[in-house]
């Protein structure tokens, strides 16, 4: 199965390990990975700030870049949700509406793709320690992906998964919100971290690099001994020999 990877700008530039893990994981599960080089950004930073015209240019580039693909998989719930919004944004645009619909229909967030398309829940990963999972807002509320990451994590050998109190609450990232409303965002991320500490997690796992950059950046500033990992990295961890 040919899978076209939309790696996202954050992973391309900052969290390359999450991108590498995504590729290795999907290949291990039998996918052939294609990386359309003309991809840029889903447009969300501009769109959510009210710069719709600017965002649309990025979106058109994304539609061009992924025109000739079967499945578009991205290790980010928020970016996947943005791509799914394209038909709504280009509604009534004779040139782009159909293309927007096509791209939205073939786009999957990574864990959603693993569980719903590849029909796999145990990817043969193992990681020892106590972890908690951050359910990012766009992934759960806009994309509607709630169960897939948890099902996958449940099968990771050695991983003890503790439910995160007030998991439904935003970590305070919100894209430009985190800088425009810095002092409020800081209170939100502090509350999130206090809940992560409450369950004494060694690992904080998430499926969105925006949230992880926010929570991780604050954890680092406060010097907390919590390791932040993208779910692709966790699912690609193989400390033990695969038993299959």
């Amino acid at each position, binding site marked *: 199965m040919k899978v076209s990877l939309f790696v996202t700008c954050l992973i391309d530039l900052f969290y390359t390990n999450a991108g590498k893990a995504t590729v290795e994981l999907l290949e291990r599960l039998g996918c052939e990975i294609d990386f359309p080089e003309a991809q*840029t950004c889903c447009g969300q930073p501009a769109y959510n700030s009210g710069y719709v015209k600017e965002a649309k240019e990025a979106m058109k580039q994304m539609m061009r870049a992924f025109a000739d693909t079967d499945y578009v998989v991205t290790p980010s719930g928020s970016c996947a949700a943005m791509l799914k919004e394209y038909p709504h944004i280009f509604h009534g645009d004779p040139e782009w509406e159909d293309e927007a619909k096509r791209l939205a229909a073939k786009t999957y967030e990574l864990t959603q793709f693993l569980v719903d398309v590849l029909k796999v829940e145990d990817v043969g990963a193992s990681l020892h320690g106590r972890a908690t999972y951050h359910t990012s807002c*766009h992934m759960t509320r806009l994309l509607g992906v709630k169960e897939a990451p948890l099902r996958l994590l449940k099968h990771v050998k050695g991983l003890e998964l503790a439910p995160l109190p007030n998991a439904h609450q935003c970590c305070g990232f919100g894209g430009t919100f985190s800088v425009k409303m810095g002092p409020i965002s800081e209170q*939100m991320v502090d509350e999130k971290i206090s809940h992560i500490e409450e369950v004494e997690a060694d690992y904080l796992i998430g499926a969105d690099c925006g949230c992880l950059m926010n929570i991780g950046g604050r954890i680092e500033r406060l010097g907390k001994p919590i390791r932040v990992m993208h779910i692709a990295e966790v699912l690609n961890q193989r400390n033990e020999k695969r038993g299959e």
Partner: protein
Amino acid sequence: MPMKIENGPFWKRVEENLQNDFMRGAVAGMQDRGYVRRLGVIEELGHWEEWRSLAEQIRKHTLEHLDYYLMQLSENVTKRGGHVFFAQTAEEANDYIRRITLEKQAKKIVKSKSMVTEEINLNPVLEAIGCDVVETDLGEYILQIDDHDPPSHIVGPALHKNKEQIRDVFRRKLGYDKSSDPVELARHARETLRRDYLTADIGITGCNFAIAESGSITLVTNEGNADLVTALPKTQITVMGMERIVPTFEEMEVLVSMLTRSAVGQKLTSYITVLTGPRDEGDADGPEEFHLVIVDNGRSSILGTEFQPVLQCIRCAACVNVCPVYRHIGGHSYGSIYSGPIGAVLSPLLGGYDDYKELPYASSLCAACTEACPVKIPLHELLIKHRQIIVEREGKAPVAEKLAMKAFRLGTASPSLYRFGTKFAPSAFAPFVEDGRITKGPGPLKAWTESREFPAPNKERFRDWFLDRQKGGKPS
């Protein structure tokens, strides 16, 4: 209290409220308890998403035929002996109510909870002609006697006060000499208010839903105060926003159920009262005269625009109760009697961008509001629409942001520019990087690094790794 709360510029309000540990604790407690309770009654009802869709349909249908239903309502109120007044502005509404008050030579007015009378700033108008206006909702009553402290929540207006603070207000203003036990406090307020009900000349109420087919109004409370306000005084004036209307009892029943579950996590509140016109011959109580004041005050200009869904609102505050921003900054930070996500959407529409330009940005767009809304208002999308207008029409966006977004457009629309930009990002950031991270960021990153580390861009981008790997063949 007008819609706008005069408490300084946005950041001053936020900084002050962030320091208010008591308020923040109270709000967080309310949100956390409310979350569990709301989910409980939603589950108990079952098929919540279908109920939401039905409620949305009802609200949308009513708004699409608002002229028809308002006419029907007006005819039926008149048929039952009531008077209807359409007020285009706050002034027109206030003038009408003042005129009735003067005609009746009223000295005392009791009021049940009504956000729209706060919005039009009714009380000072009546006080200016020598009337004693008494709020009877316990929360509103506390705020009123505390020198008109503004409401911080559309359903629980005194949420920001604790019982000790309330005891102190009662001591100062009412000569209260007992403890801060809520039961004792409530008993004292009830005793005081009972005298007011008995001596009031006019009762003023809000309106949860008006029913077009019968000309009735529906009042939803847990305290029963609205029932006394409407049963005892000789004249009743009900003030409603022009969108607070349903076609028939059937739709009212659906929306009341959505309202009480969403607002307070109850299947039903203690009192749900439907009143139709003045008292009939043989009725034991009720007003001799009934006036319905239907307030536009900017609402009709929202009709037919992309913001029309905001008029679906039934003022349950479910969005407020799940908002993580409201959780930390509290209601007063919004500078409007309408706070939380609904306030951030509604206040700029009713009061303009000059006073409320920050509110659309006071959201992480986490969409908890949209998910909680029982009538499916896409609140976070409407916040983005506000941002778009602020950028495109109002021209109020900061210059640096405009430049950054111009660069974003260039960089993301052209793959070669994008590749170029990301390739040189590591060297551009290099002077600020220490141990693989940025602790004191330049420009817009500064706000980020005030509280968080920022990752240094990788010299080997993902795409470099991938393309190298592809060239060299896949490792086995």
